[in-house]
Structures are given as C-alpha cells and as structure tokens.
C-alpha cells in the first residue's frame, strides 16, 4: 500500500457510477500488472485478469445498486434528522417566547376556526350535493296546480313529476294547545321522486291522496311526540280536522326547507277546495320533475315553453303571458343563499388574512431580535435554505397548532350556529366537520403559515455578512425590517377597511330597513291566525268570522279588533288580476294584492283612512259590493283624482266578478317584508268574499299574555273547532321578518370589530417599535430644540401616513368589492359614500389611538439618555 493518502473529493454527493468504475478498473490493472510481472505479455495478462474477475459490467451493476440504495437511506435519514432538529428547535424557540406564542396562537386559532366554521356551512350548502337520489336530474318549477298537471301530461322530458304547496296548519294534539306549523301539501309520489325512505312507517301511497294522513318531520316528532316510536296511527288535529300519522321522515330530511314540519297529501285540496286546485290563477304550487336520461334542462325548458304557449291560448284570462320557469332543484333550494355565504366566507377569509398580517409582524419583530443568532448560524455553515426551512418549520408548527385549536373552535362554533344559518341547508346534518372541511382546514393552515411566515423567513436569512457587521441600532437591516412591517400594516389596514365597509353597508341597510314605516303601528298590536277549514260551508265561515271579530272587540283591554287574509310584513296571501271602470289597464298594471278584511281591521292596525271610509259593519254579504284600495293603487289608477265612487272588479275566478264600488282609500301597508316597496292592494269585505282563514289583529296595550287567557274561552264560544295559531306581538313578527339581515349584520359587525382590534394591535406594534428605534433621533431633535408636540406629531405622522395609505387602498378595494353585496343591501347603494368615509375615518382614528401610547412615550424621552445609548 504505497498510495499517498490525500482527500480527493471533499464535498458534494458521490458520483456512484464513476467511483465503482474507477475501483474495478484499478483492481483489473493491478491484477494485470501482477500477471505481467510473472512474465505474461500485456495482452495475455489482461485476458487472464479479466478471466479471473468475471464480468466487470455485472459486478459494477451490483455495486452501484447497493451504493444507490445506501445513498438514498443516508439522504432520508439526514432529512429526518434535519426535520427533527428543526422541530425541536422550533418548539424550543416558541416555548421560550410564551407571550409571542400565545398571542400568535390565539390569533391563528380564531382565524382558522372562524374560517373553518364558515366553510362548513359553505360545504353543506354549496359543495355537498342534494341528499336525494340522482339529484342532478331534479328540476323545479312553479305554477297553478292545473298548469303543473298539464305540464306533467304534456312534457315528455320528465320521468316523474311531484307537486307541493306550503300551508300553515294549526296543529293540536288531544288535550293540548294549538300551535302553528308550516307543512307541505304534497303529491303522494314526492318521496318516491326524491328517492327518500321514511325513518318510521311509510310515505304516502296513491291510495292516500284524499285521506287525512300525515308524515312527520323528525324535529316535530321529537318536540311534539317525544320521539315516541308508537306514534304511527296516532291522531292529531290539523286546523280543525283529524289526521293520522303514517310515517316519520329521517332526521336529515328537510324539504323544501327546514321550516317544514309535516307533509300531508295534496289531494285533500282537490277534495276540500276543488276550486283552488282547478284555479289557474292560483299559482302557489311548486313542482319537481326528474329529467329523463339524456334530456338537458334546456330541452325541458323548450318543452315547457311550448306547453305554456298552448295554455295561454286556451286560457287567456288566467294564463296570458305566463310561462314556466324551470331551474335545477339545487338552484331552487340553495341558489339564493349563495351571495350571503360568499360574502360571509369572504369576510372571514379577510379576517384570517388580517390575523396573518399581525402574526407576520410579530415574527418580524422577533427576527430582528434574532438576526444575530441567524447570522452566527450562517457563519457557522448553515445554508440560507436551511435557515429559511427552519423558520418556516417554526411558522408551520405555529400554524399547525393554531389550526388544531381552530378546528376545536370550529367544532364548538358549528354547534352554536343558530337555526338561521342552517334553515337553507338541504341536508339536516349537513353542517359538520367532514373530510372536505378537514382538507380545507389543513389547506388554510398551510397557506396561513406561508402567508405569515415566508416574508419574515426570507428577511431573516438574508446573509451573514450584513447582519454581523451591523452591530448598532438603526442599521440597514432594521430599517428594511421596519419598511416590511409598515407594508404589512398598510395591507392589514386596507383589509380591515374592506371588512368595515361591508359591515357598515349591512348596518346602514338594516337601519334603513327597520326605520321604514310599515304602514301600521306595531306597538301594542297582537296577532294570531284562525282557520275555518273545518267549518262546513261558506255561510258558516262568514258567520264565524264576523262573530269572532265582534267577540274579540269585547275582550277587556282590547281597544280594536279586526282581521284580514294577509299578515302584514309576512304575507299578502295572493295577487289577483282586476279591471277598473273606464280604464284600460296594461298587463303590468292589472295585478294587485287582494285581501278580504273585516270591520275594525284598519282601526286595529292604525292605518290611516285617506279618503272615504274603511270596511265596516255595513258591508254585509247582502249589501252592495264594495272595495277599499291603498294609496299606491289609487295613485296608479286615478292620479290626482278622487277614487271614491269609481268601480273595479276582480278577475280571480274564485271570487265573484261583481263590479265593486271603491268606498275608501287607505295608507300603504307593507305586506311582504319591509324591503319591498308597497304594492297596489285591494281590500274587499270578508263578509262578501269569505276565505278559509283570517289573520286577526288586536290593539291590546296589555300584550300577549292576557289575550292568550281570554282566547281560551272566546274562541270555543264562537265555534268549537277554532284555535289561535302563532299568537304573538306584531313587533315580534317584524323582528322575525328581518332576522336574516339582522344576523348577517351582527355577524359582519363582529368580524369588523375583530378586524379593528387586530389592526390596532398591528399599528401599535409597528409604531412602538419604530419609536424604540428612533430614540436617538428623538433625542437629537429634542436637544436641538424640538418640543413635546413636535415629537408627538413626528410619531403620529408616521401612524397617519401608514394608516392613510392602507385606507386609500382599502377604499378602492371596498368600492370594487362591495358591488357583490348588492343582493344583501336595501335602500343603500353598494358604494355608499358615507359608509366608505366612516370606515376610512374609523381606521384613521383607531390608528391614531393605537399610536398614542408610543407617541407619549417618545415625548418623554430624555435627550441625554437617548444620546448616550450606543
């Protein structure tokens, strides 16, 4: 062994192929040399050496295979050990800065938790498919029952069609109180078309069509029947008639929304109120169809259009200009919750970004402190990539822990989501943490780590030389760090402005909505509904209604009593076509809401009678047919003229087509939500146009409770089948009608509050740090004669310029983004200048407030100490 040992290839991965070839070649040469030394010729020696060795190519391949596998293992082991090192190091440095870790962790947990919670709703509504069999082939439409039946008969695009209408029932169990529930009157094949099996009992069979049977929704079964498995066969009273329970729907089943508590056969309408089922103007029915294989929704639309055209020619009085709107069942059920969800998840995502900005700022503040540690490690041979990786590991660890905490928060938050959010979720148990939500949460966590961790990591590992050279304060690195932090705060401010503008718009919209005059005085107004369905004929219903109103007015504490077939703010019940004496109305003028009202109705509502008189006891069935119209209709029909004495007649086939004399004009009452402008409305005397139900209004300063007690004796006295449904104050009715906008507004306001707090923290951090950095400068300025206010202004100016930049950016973004909120806004435009100004102003104020403490601290700097430091 005579070789001089000296290193040949110091660093870098080995070249396995060359090494093996060299090694084997050396062996063969040495062997050849030995043979040659024994007297063989070069050629002979070479052949002998090769013979002795075997096939060099095979040996080389075997060696290479071994080496390569070995190298792989070595690499894997070193990666694992690096990772372990990084994790240990990251864990240690997080534990060693508990304040930082806790603040960052809470910020991230809240951000990721809120985002995950919101996404679980999005997942349930927009991602999961409808819980029905082959849901993509289900389409929905609306119309009158007769039209829908013609559509079913004529269109070959559908395998099956099912129909339903919603109906309010007064539900009473044997010996119990009555409560109002929303139910569906459905064709007996509805469950079959949806492909849904009941949990208990059976769904409807064709034989049930005209029978008094019901299927209970799971929540109603739980709340009213205690989840009793023996419920099948039990009898309940619905609006005065007895029904038998034949089935219970599975817990997740809700159709068309979660508000539906039971289903009864549609055929009962054919049986009890055939005029409704046959009335083509009575477009309160919905249909769903299952498209035939290979039929597109466009083809189905084409077929439906042809049928609508035929019906319009056959029944011009009711069907002229009427067509079927065919949309996918998915769009019908959840389509309109899309914008709300998009805005809420967008807002929550912005909040998470703002949280990221704060965490990034915290990390930057720390990396400035740790800069020397990084520099030393780099000088000792750690590569830039290795340091970035270590810092990213720290960020990922932080985000991972935040994500796990956030997931716990989300699990808890999902339980808190009020019924409001999930009313439109097509599957009852749809809001849950499933694989999709978990994947989203994991993705959010990793993205979060990258967003808040990358810039600080790159910043920290810039290079050893610069950092080591800079020993003093205010050196280049620190200035660059400060600039980056300012940029982050500017971005954060901009994001907060966007959230704030969104919340502000919803608040303005909500305030405008609730400030609207509903056209009646809701205070001290109590309402309930009664159903006359169980009464045998029109005459007895007329009788019962008029006696009811008289009796109610006599209840002590009731100042006025009346009723109508529509419930203000909630439902106008129906529209009708009509014609007016001496005026040809074009198509869009010829429709109005139409309600039958009892004497005392407008007195109870305190709706002003503007001309003539209200409906009163003169207007009996035998008296001359009259009508009262609202101001909008009066202005539309007889602009600038007296309406009293003019005539109109309803074209609703269900009602008499008598010409009615207009005897009064009353103020406009909001019947469908506070957001809709008042619609033309016609009131007729209930006695002349009796209905199956009445929404009673009582002016009763004593409130709901005394009324409830009185009703227990008053109602049975009028007729034993009468019960009061949904007894509540009108303020409650109004409050409920704006519950969705209120919920959106409160949620977004809470988000905005969070955004403001986070931004305040961000601004404070940057300004406080900047003041600490500029102590020397402040000292110099004070030494050459600057007073406290100059210094105060110096600091506040920095805060203001930073915040202003953010505000300007944010306002531009908000102006662009708020357009997407249009569908959530009432009476306020998306780019509403006062809202934009208020949001911008609020952030400037918050930025100033957040920098007040550092500013005051700067004022108190003693010039001498500041100058002495370094």
């Amino acid at each position, binding site marked *: 062994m005579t070789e001089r040992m000296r290193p040949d290839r110091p660093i870098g991965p080995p070249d396995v192929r060359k090494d093996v070839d060299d090694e084997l070649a050396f062996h063969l040469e040495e062997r050849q040399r030995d043979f040659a030394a024994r007297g063989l010729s070069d050629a002979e020696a070479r052949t002998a050496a090769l013979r002795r060795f075997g096939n060099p190519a095979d040996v080389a391949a*075997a060696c290479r295979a071994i080496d390569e596998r070995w190298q792989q293992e070595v690499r894997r082991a070193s990666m694992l050990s690096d990772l372990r090192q990084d994790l240990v190091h990251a864990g240690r440095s997080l534990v060693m800065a508990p304040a930082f870790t806790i603040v960052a962790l809470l910020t991230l947990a809240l951000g990721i938790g809120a985002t995950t919670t919101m996404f679980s709703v999005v997942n349930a509504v927009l991602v999961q498919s409808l819980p029905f069999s082959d849901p993509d082939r289900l389409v929905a439409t609306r119309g009158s029952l007769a039209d829908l039946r013609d559509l079913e008969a004529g269109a070959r695009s559908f395998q099956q069609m099912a129909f339903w209408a919603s109906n309010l029932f007064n539900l009473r169990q044997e010996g119990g109180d009555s409560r109002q529930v929303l139910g569906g009157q459905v064709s007996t094949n509805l469950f079959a078309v949806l492909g849904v099996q009941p949990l208990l009992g059976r769904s409807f069979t064709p034989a049930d069509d005209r029978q008094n049977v019901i299927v209970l929704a799971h929540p109603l079964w739980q709340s009213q029947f205690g989840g009793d498995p023996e419920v099948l066969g039990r009898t309940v009273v619905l609006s005065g008639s007895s029904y038998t329970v034949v089935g219970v729907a599975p817990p997740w089943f809700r159709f068309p929304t979660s508000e539906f508590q039971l289903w009864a056969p549609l055929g009962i309408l054919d049986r009890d109120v055939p005029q409704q089922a046959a009335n083509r103007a009575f477009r309160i029915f919905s249909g769903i169809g299952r498209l035939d294989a290979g039929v597109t929704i466009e083809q189905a639309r084409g077929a439906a259009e042809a049928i609508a055209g035929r019906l319009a020619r056959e029944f011009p009085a009711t069907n002229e200009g009427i067509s079927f709107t065919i949309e996918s069942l998915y769009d019908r059920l959840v389509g309109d919750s899309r914008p709300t969800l998009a805005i809420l998840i967008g807002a929550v995502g912005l909040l998470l970004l703002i949280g990221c900005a704060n965490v990034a700022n915290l990390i930057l503040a720390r990396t400035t402190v740790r800069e020397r540690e990084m520099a030393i490690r780099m000088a000792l041979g750690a590569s830039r990539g290795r340091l970035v990786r270590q810092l990213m590991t720290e960020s990922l660890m932080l985000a991972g822990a935040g994500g796990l905490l956030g997931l716990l928060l989300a699990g808890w938050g999902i339980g808190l989501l009020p019924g409001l959010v999930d009313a439109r979720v097509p599957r009852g148990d749809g809001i849950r943490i499933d694989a999709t939500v978990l994947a989203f949460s994991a993705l959010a966590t990793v993205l979060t780590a990258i967003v808040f961790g990358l810039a600080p990591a790159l910043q920290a590992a810039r290079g050893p030389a610069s950092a080591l050279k800079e020993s003093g304060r205010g050196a280049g690195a620190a200035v660059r760090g400060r600039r980056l932090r300012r940029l982050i705060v500017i971005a954060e401010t901009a994001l907060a402005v966007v959230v704030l503008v969104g919340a502000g718009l919803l608040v303005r919209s909500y305030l405008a909505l609730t400030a609207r005059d509903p056209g009646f005085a809701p205070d001290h107004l109590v309402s309930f509904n009664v159903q006359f369905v169980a009464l045998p004929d029109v005459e007895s219903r007329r009788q019962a209604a008029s006696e009811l109103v008289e009796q109610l007015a006599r209840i002590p504490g009731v100042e006025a009593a009346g009723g109508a077939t529509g419930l203000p703010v909630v439902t106008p019940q129906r529209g009708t076509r009509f014609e007016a004496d001496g005026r040809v109305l074009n198509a869009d003028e010829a429709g109005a809401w139409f309600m039958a009202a009892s004497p005392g109705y407008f007195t109870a509502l305190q709706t002003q009678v503007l001309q003539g008189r209200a409906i009163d006891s003169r207007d009996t069935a035998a008296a001359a047919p009259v009508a009262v119209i609202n101001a909008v209709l009066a202005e539309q029909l007889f602009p600038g003229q007296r309406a009293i004495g003019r005539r109109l007649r309803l074209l609703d086939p269900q009602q008499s087509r008598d010409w009615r004399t207009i005897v009064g004009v009353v103020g406009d009452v909001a019947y469908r939500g506070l957001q809709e402008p008042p619609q033309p409305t016609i009131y007729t005397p209930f006695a002349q146009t009796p209905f199956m139900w009445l929404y009673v209004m009582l002016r009763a300063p004593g409130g709901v409770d005394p009324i409830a007690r009185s009703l227990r004796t008053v109602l049975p006295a009028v007729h034993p089948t009468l019960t009061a449904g949904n007894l509540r104050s009108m303020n409650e009715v109004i409050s409920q009608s704006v519950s969705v906008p209120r919920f959106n507004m409160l949620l977004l306001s809470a988000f905005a509050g969070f955004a403001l707090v986070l931004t305040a923290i961000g601004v404070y951090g940057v300004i406080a740090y900047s003041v600490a950095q500029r102590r020397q400068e402040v000292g110099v300025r004070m030494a050459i004669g600057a007073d406290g206010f100059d210094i105060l202004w110096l600091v506040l100016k920095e805060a203001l310029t930073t915040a202003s930049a953010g505000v300007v950016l944010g306002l531009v973004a908000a102006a662009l983004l708020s357009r997407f909120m249009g569908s959530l806004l009432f009476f306020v435009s998306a780019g509403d200048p006062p809202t934009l100004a208020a949001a911008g102003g609020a952030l400037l104020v918050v930025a100033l407030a957040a920098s007040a403490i550092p500013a005051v601290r700067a004022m108190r700097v003693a010039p001498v100490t500041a100058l002495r430091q370094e």
Partner: protein
Amino acid sequence: MDRTTIDLLQGTLAVLILKALSWGPMHGYGIARWIEDVTDQDLLVEEGSLYPALHRLEALGFVTSAWSISDTNRRVKSYTITDRGRQRLRAETSRWDRFSVAVSRVLQARRPRTA
C-alpha cells in the same frame, strides 16, 4: 497448481474481508491478494463477489472508505474497518469457532452402541 476450492458459506466472505481489514486499511485488490496469500490460494475468492460484499459492508457501517491517489496516479478506494466492524468480526470468529468445534466433534464421533 493443485488447488482446493472451498464453496464459501454465505456471509463467510464478509468475515474474511473484515479479518483482512483488521490489520489496517486496504483497497479491494489488496484484500483479494491477502486472502490468496494467507490461504496459500486454497481458498480462491471469486473476485466478482468481493466488491458487492465490500459495498454491502460499507452500507451496513462495518467498514468505511476513502479515496486517495496512487503513485500510478490512479484514484484508489481503500477501506477501513469500523468499531462496529471489529465487534462483528469478534462475534463471527467465536461463532465460527463454536461451529467448527461442533462439526469436528460430529466428524470424530464413534459409532454409537446399540442397546
């Protein structure tokens, strides 16, 4: 030359290599030559299997290698036994001793007495 070729038991080559290296670092050809010398060429190592065995030993951590330049100006890979390699050699040696004693005892055994 009259030579006995002994079919090496699996793993025996590894022991021979470790033994060769126990005297000091060597390159592959040196190991082959050493085995030839000490066995008077009774034991003919198949040179082809020597190198995979060496590489396997290195991957297992029983030997390490280093490159140097020979006086013929060639890159030479020489192997050094590690502490683990020495441990392994000791274990194999004692195992071999026990094995050969046992086998010798069997081969020298007398015919058993029948009852």
